């Protein structure tokens, strides 16, 4: 047997194109669906899509059901006692930006509020100052009274001392007189003596 010539076929679709040649060894007739011709790919896509959906569903069924993740709010976990910095938590439903005060009415309202507050402060300050002043006055009067009493007592004691001295002086004067009369020499006579037994 002579070796038969082999032909390389790149793929099953790339068969011999010649119509005159006999059909391939396999004899398989090319179906309308396989083939890469572009004109044939322009078929209505309806059934293909349905097929894809089916495939997707199958894929979904094959997949494991995704676990639901809960947020801290859903679980009702108590929040940590920490400081939330300003600007991090923004109130919901509130309008963004600053609210300006430019109309006369609202300015007057703010001004009257501020003034009432200030008046109250000043009033209380003045009342306090007046009370303090009264207390100071009372203390001053009391201190003066005490000082006067002390002075009076001192005067009394002084007087009494003077009187006492006068009385003593009366007695002393006699002595002095006697001394002046007799002289102090009499005392000198009583000299210290040492006696030996």
């Amino acid at each position, binding site marked *: 047997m002579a070796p038969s010539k082999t032909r390389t076929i790149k793929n099953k679709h790339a068969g011999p194109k010649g119509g005159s040649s006999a059909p391939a060894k396999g004899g398989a007739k090319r179906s309308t669906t396989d083939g890469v011709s572009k004109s044939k790919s322009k078929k209505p896509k309806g059934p293909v899509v349905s097929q894809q959906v089916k495939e997707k569903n199958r894929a979904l069924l094959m997949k494991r059901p995704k676990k639901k993740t809960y947020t801290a709010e859903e679980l009702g976990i108590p929040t940590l006692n920490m400081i939330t910095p300003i600007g991090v938590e923004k109130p919901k439903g509130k309008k963004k930006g*600053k*609210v*300006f*005060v*430019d109309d*006369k009415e*609202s*300015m*007057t309202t*703010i*001004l*009257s*509020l*501020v*003034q009432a*507050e*200030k008046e109250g402060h*000043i009033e209380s*300050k*003045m009342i*306090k*100052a007046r009370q303090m*002043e009264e207390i100071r006055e009372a203390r001053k009067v009391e201190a003066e009274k005490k000082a006067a009493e002390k002075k009076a007592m001192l005067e009394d004691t002084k007087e009494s001392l003077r009187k006492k001295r006068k009385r003593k002086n009366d007695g002393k004067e006699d002595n002095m007189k006697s001394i002046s009369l007799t002289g102090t020499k009499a005392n000198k006579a009583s000299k210290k003596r040492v006696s030996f037994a």
Partner: protein
Amino acid sequence: MRPLTEEETQAVFKKLAEYTGASLKNIIAPQEDGDRNVFRLSQNRVYVVRLSMANLATSIARDNLLSLGTCLGKFTKSGKFRIHITALPILAEHARHKLWIRPNGVMPFLYGGNIVKAHVGRFSEDCPEHQGLVVYTMDDVPLGFGVSARSTAESRRLDPTGVVCFRQADCGEYLRDEDTLFQSG
């Protein structure tokens, strides 16, 4: 340039009310020609300006607008309001408590010193401690403002060198702080 928010307005009025009485409401009252004064914030400085002028000023770019109307003071970075000497005409007009200083005390005050008892010519009655005061010369020329160191009754007993009023601002600042007083930014 923008109007003030509610908090800012409150801060400004609180500071002004330290020095002024009930007549401060005249500042926002409508004027005879139908115009009124409004507050405007430009580069942290607060200005009192006529509404018509403020509307005209909107045509000037923010960077090009140095000043308009009367500058009251400025907001610090922490949100407090600091009153400037430029607000003196308004304070002098509506002052609650006043202090007149003798001619020998004018220069020490204008050089930035506190007011001592020896320099006081006249003093408002019933002025409590730490209350805003507007300082005048004996000829009623406003010189600046400060805060009372003691109440009127206490300051009467004070010795001549005792401080009666702590200086907050004086007209000497126009020269001393010339380069920072109107500087923006």
